[in-house]
């Protein structure tokens, strides 16, 4: 349910949005996201598949966005997911969360709530025990950014 206030904020940012969203703060650019990915993978190739990143495609409020990542893996000592990293394209910092797990996790899945500053692509990368990297990305549209409230407190 959209309250009157939410609607007005959304309408205002749609109308005068350019001035509001182009803030003086530097956002992480896609290049910085690539750097963050490289830091995780060490330059190893990342293939798409096996990972399922679940984020709503249209987000009312960027301050608390439900996000979950599930990776197809038997989670056995011989073949399991070692870590999962979530990075974004246009948040002030590209990294969002990194989780480390192993065969004792039983299932390679976690869920949390994140902040999204802008309409952007969110990427999840999983590192397997055999050293391979798999990923999934979702493009999300954010109507109320997690960073618009600065100056109001």
């Amino acid at each position, binding site marked *: 349910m959209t309250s009157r206030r939410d609607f007005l904020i959304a309408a205002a940012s749609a109308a005068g949005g350019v001035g509001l969203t182009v803030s003086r703060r530097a956002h992480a650019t896609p290049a910085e996201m690539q750097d963050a990915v490289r830091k995780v993978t060490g330059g190893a190739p990342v293939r798409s598949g096996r990972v399922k990143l679940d984020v709503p495609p249209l987000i009312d409020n960027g301050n608390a966005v439900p996000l979950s990542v599930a990776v197809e893996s038997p989670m056995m000592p011989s073949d399991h997911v070692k870590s999962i990293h979530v990075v974004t394209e246009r948040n002030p910092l590209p990294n*969002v969360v990194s*989780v*480390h*797990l192993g065969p004792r996790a039983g299932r390679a*899945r976690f869920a*949390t709530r*994140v902040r999204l500053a802008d309409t952007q692509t969110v990427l999840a990368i999983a590192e397997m025990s055999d050293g391979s990297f798999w990923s999934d990305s979702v493009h999300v549209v954010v109507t109320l950014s997690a960073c618009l409230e600065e100056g*109001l407190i």
Partner: protein
Amino acid sequence: MARAVVNVPATVRRGEVFEIRTLVQHAMETGFRRTQLGEAIPRDIIRQFVCTYNGAEVFRAEFHPAISANPLLAFSTVATESGTLAFAWTGDKGFSVTESARITVV
């Protein structure tokens, strides 16, 4: 004192994968916001979460400022033996909260 809530089933069958849900009270101040006077509000976030099962680490997470206030985390583990699940959150300004839950494996 910050509050933490964990949700763990009381009894689980051996070998079963069960879900753990955790919630901790924290503002997760990003370090990117400013006051009305233009002063930057310093970053104050939880940096790390660790879950141990009878002393052995089963899940660990590193948080960045993009995690929402009052971080929620749901994950899973395999029921191996009865015992204690311990949860620890650590962060800036000496933030440290621990919580534990008993689990019975049948």
